[in-house]
């Protein structure tokens, strides 16, 4: 039986970790993810898990320790944010190329500078090409559910890739919500045991990982890794289907909100989607055909699904909660525009960079975006494609 309980996003992740009881947790604290190892340390002290809890000296070491544990055949986890994730950067690519299914919880936080502890996606989206699968959540329930699905996706033999479970720093990581927590045994049976066929000290045939791959091998290794990410799309859907069957909550690569007949739409990630949905409800009440796509999975990128969903729209705003400094739009805009490039009739598309470093995103702000989209749909004039929203300016 599931129970309802009040948990922050961080505590929800720590609870999922306790239920899964991983072999190794290599931890290094950084705001706002610190609570995850903090809660978990209590579970270790109370004997609720038998995880090897290693306090390492940096995030680079945390991810490195996870790789060692995974290569040895264990299930390894860690958590980080912002500069900590950047400091892991080198090792994230190693995890991806070694195809070791580490699960990393990220409480997404702005990158310096100016130095800032609040939410945007500059940390996690900067790692979108690292070879990690990336799942994003709108609220605490989704963070918990994504974490329950994470190991099964990452460890699937057709995938075997590391995975980030991303939540919005402070907004989701620290805000407390009433959520459904599943029964420990039900979680254990859903997630299952991790028993890789090969591992470092396997007696019959010891494993060697990370060989030198010169130009005669590198291309083949990368193509194989790229195909694993393509396979991940199918596996994420399969695991979500089994999750729905087991626990009753539905997940997909994207969530479509009033998209069936939408003429104007927003593509958005994370907690902001909840705010924007309230705005869509308001506009629908006025007879305006507004819709929204929430992107749950950024890697692998659901390009076909987004293009299909946007195919009936006249004007679309891509909402970027990180600045990519490309001088022509944020990272989500580039991905969505790429997804639509071969459509026969493309909607007009603009990029709104908003909410950087925790700047508030409100229903009124969402409304102003839909008003602009309405104007574009009426006039056929796109106007400025790359704009920032919510900053003070003259």
């Amino acid at each position: 039986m599931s129970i309802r309980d009040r948990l922050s996003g961080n505590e929800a992740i720590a609870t999922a970790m306790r239920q899964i009881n991983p072999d190794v947790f290599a931890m290094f604290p950084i705001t706002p993810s610190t609570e995850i190892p903090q809660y978990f340390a209590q579970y270790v002290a109370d004997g609720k898990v038998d995880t090897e809890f290693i306090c390492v000296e940096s995030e680079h070491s945390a991810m490195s320790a996870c790789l060692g544990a995974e290569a040895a055949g264990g299930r390894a986890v860690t958590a980080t944010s912002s500069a900590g994730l950047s400091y892991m950067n080198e090792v994230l690519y190693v995890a991806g190329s070694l195809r070791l299914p580490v699960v990393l919880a990220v409480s997404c936080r702005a990158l310096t500078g100016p130095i800032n502890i609040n939410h945007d996606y500059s940390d996690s989206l900067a790692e979108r090409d690292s070879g990690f699968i990336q799942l994003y959540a709108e609220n605490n329930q989704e963070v918990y559910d994504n974490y329950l699905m994470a190991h099964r996706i990452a460890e699937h033999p057709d995938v075997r890739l590391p995975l980030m479970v991303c939540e919005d720093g402070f907004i989701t990581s620290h805000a407390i919500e009433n959520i459904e927590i599943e029964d420990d045994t039900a979680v254990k049976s859903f997630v299952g045991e991790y028993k890789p066929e090969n591992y470092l000290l396997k007696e019959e045939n010891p494993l060697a990982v990370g060989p030198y791959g010169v130009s005669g091998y590198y291309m083949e290794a990368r193509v194989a890794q790229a195909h694993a990410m393509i396979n991940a799309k199918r596996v994420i859907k399969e695991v979500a289907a089994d999750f729905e069957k087991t626990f009753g909550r539905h997940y997909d690569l994207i969530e479509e909100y009033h998209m069936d007949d939408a003429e104007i739409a927003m593509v958005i990630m994370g907690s902001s989607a909840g705010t924007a949905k309230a705005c869509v409800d308001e506009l629908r009440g006025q007879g305006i055909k507004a819709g929204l796509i929430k992107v749950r999975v950024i890697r692998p990128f659901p390009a076909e699904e987004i293009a299909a969903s946007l195919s009936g729209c006249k004007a679309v705003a891509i909402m970027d909660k990180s600045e990519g400094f490309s001088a022509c739009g944020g990272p989500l805009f580039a991905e969505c525009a790429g997804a639509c490039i071969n459509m026969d009739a493309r909607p007009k598309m603009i990029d709104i960079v908003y909410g950087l470093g925790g700047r508030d995103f409100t229903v009124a702000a969402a409304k102003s975006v839909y008003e602009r989209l309405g104007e574009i749909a009426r006039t056929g004039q796109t106007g400025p494609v790359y704009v920032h929203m919510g900053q003070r300016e003259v």
Partner: protein
Amino acid sequence: MKQAKDINEQIPWQEMTVGCEIYEPGTSRLTKTGEWRSKTPEWIEDKCKQCVLCAPFCPDASIPVKDGKRSEFDYEHCKGCGICIKVCPFDAIKWKEE
């Protein structure tokens, strides 16, 4: 299970192991890494007292020892680091004249 001897620069990506993993030990024998060498040590057998101090110091196990005696370098794996030259108490190893 794929064996290291079957992994080569002719096989397609579909036949590579996951993450380039190698499922057996001791496979460096199959890879001739001696070509990295830019300088080459030379064993002067006349001066050698067979103390075999050089062998354990060699980082690449490129000094074969059998029945307590060393023999000629394994040039297919020697990287030419020169550690054997430094540790030999009898000047029985020197750089080859190029």
